[in-house]
């Protein structure tokens, strides 16, 4: 019940951002989807749509989670929550769950479109677990960034920049295979490349790297980020590091 209480708090907390959410979760991604469909006439649309699924998740879900977590771990808020009957890790998991609920219709619709338009047939359904793994990884990335930055004002400046770098240095809307080898090596350092690499092979595209390596990397890096966040959030002496 405590968990539901936290989710409810987060969902209600989104009420004043209704227009922001409508634009970022519905208007913008589906406008991009239409543009991608029009631009890629005659091609397999699922490549660009898979890029849009990941880009939308990074732009909205990761941003929302990272901002909220950085807000929860700022000193004044930590002081307030220190005496409330909920531990900080519950607050964070509740926030992630609430934002997952918020972005789920958008991700679900775009993923459905991606699978439906794929030329891989039923095989494309296997992209769903890959999308889910990517979703989990990005949730952990958001929590990790929030606990690392710990300052919502800094976060406001840093997260859009980081999002831009991540999206630029990953084959979200372009194909990396034909690019110089050095650049391919660079994009392979970007976790978003591996998120895309666990989705696209099931849509009929050649993987940049063995899919099992990408899965392993996402699990290991995601696990490490999750461990870091958990350790930080469980440490009641969280304010020590501010000085």
């Amino acid at each position, binding site marked *: *019940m405590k968990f539901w209480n936290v989710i409810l*708090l987060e969902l209600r907390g989104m*009420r004043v*951002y209704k227009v922001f959410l409508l634009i970022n979760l519905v208007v913008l991604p589906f406008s991009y989807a239409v543009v991608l469909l029009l631009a890629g006439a005659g091609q397999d649309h699922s490549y660009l749509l898979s890029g849009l699924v990941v880009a939308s998740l990074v732009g909205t879900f990761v941003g929302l989670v990272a901002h909220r977590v950085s807000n929860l771990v700022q000193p004044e808020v*930590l002081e307030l929550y220190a005496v409330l009957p909920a531990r900080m890790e519950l607050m964070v998991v509740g926030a992630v769950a609430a934002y997952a609920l918020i972005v789920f219709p958008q991700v679900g619709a775009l993923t459905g479109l991606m699978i439906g338009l794929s030329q891989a047939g039923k095989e494309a359904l296997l992209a769903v677990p890959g999308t889910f793994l990517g979703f989990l990884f990005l949730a952990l990335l958001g929590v990790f960034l929030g606990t690392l930055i710990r300052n919502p004002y800094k976060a406001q400046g840093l997260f859009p920049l980081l999002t831009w770098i991540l999206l630029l240095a990953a084959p979200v809307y372009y194909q990396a295979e034909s690019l110089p080898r050095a650049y391919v090596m660079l994009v392979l350092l970007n976790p978003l490349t591996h998120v895309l690499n666990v989705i696209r092979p099931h849509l009929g595209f050649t993987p940049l790297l063995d899919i099992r390596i990408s899965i392993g990397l996402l699990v290991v890096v995601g696990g490490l980020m999750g461990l870091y966040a958990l350790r930080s959030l469980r440490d*009641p002496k969280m304010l020590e590091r501010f000085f």
Partner: protein
Amino acid sequence: MIEVADLTKEYPNGTRANAGLSLTVNEGEIVGVIGPNGAGKTTLIRQLLGLLKPTSGRIRILGCDVVSHPHMIKGRVGYVPQAPLTYPSLTVAEVISFVLGLKGLRGAGLRERVMETLTLVGLEQSAGSFGYQLSRGMARLVLLGMAICQNPPVLILDEPTAMVDIERKERVWHAITASGARAVVLASHDIHEVREHCTRVYLMVGGKFIAEGPPHEIAALTRLSTVLTIVADDSQRVEELLVESGDMFRRKGDVFEIVFPELVMALSRLELIRQGIALRYVHLEAPSLERAVKQLLLEGRVQ
């Protein structure tokens, strides 16, 4: 109820935030901590809340060691932070419901407790107002509601009435005393509030307590003068009389602030003025706690 013994906090960069602090709060006491900005009050509060590990010393709340069991304070300590934090898109009633929901309250019991709390802090008319609509003073009342709705035996208040209007200040103190808290720590800059409500006061400067005791004893620690403030119908005559008597005084418009070395002298002068001049306002402070605190803080800084 609260026992702090020889508490010292030194940050890794060598900054000493507090040194050798010892403080006790017994059952039924409201203990004030006064000090200028940067005196170390926030560090002390964060240590009491279990968020900062002391370099040395001990903190016990309700008999339990806060350093080794930092989560013990959850539900047992109520805290009103200095920052007027708000939940912009939650109504006042929803915020209190959230806290009570975390405590496990549901249904009619929850709604009843929410209304009780809002009535206690004087926000019953604002139950449906969103956080972004609240003034800073009202936001502070919501924070007080969050603290006292849990019925904690210990309250830690960091300037609970800052930015709260005069009428609501009384409501705040009524809520604090009616909350059932058995021990209260109040960090404040408001000397009048401290004098009126605290049973004991700790004076803090440079991370150390430089004086401790009931407010009247703190005031008596310094050989400070008695201050008589008056407003008379005939200011000209008052001034002539004071000049004639050789008293030390300061005039601001119709307000006279006269300083006497002893209370008895102030009383006799007041009697003399009253014999021939009608007074509209009289205030006597002997000795002034505010002046005593200023003096002690100054001496503490020099040391």
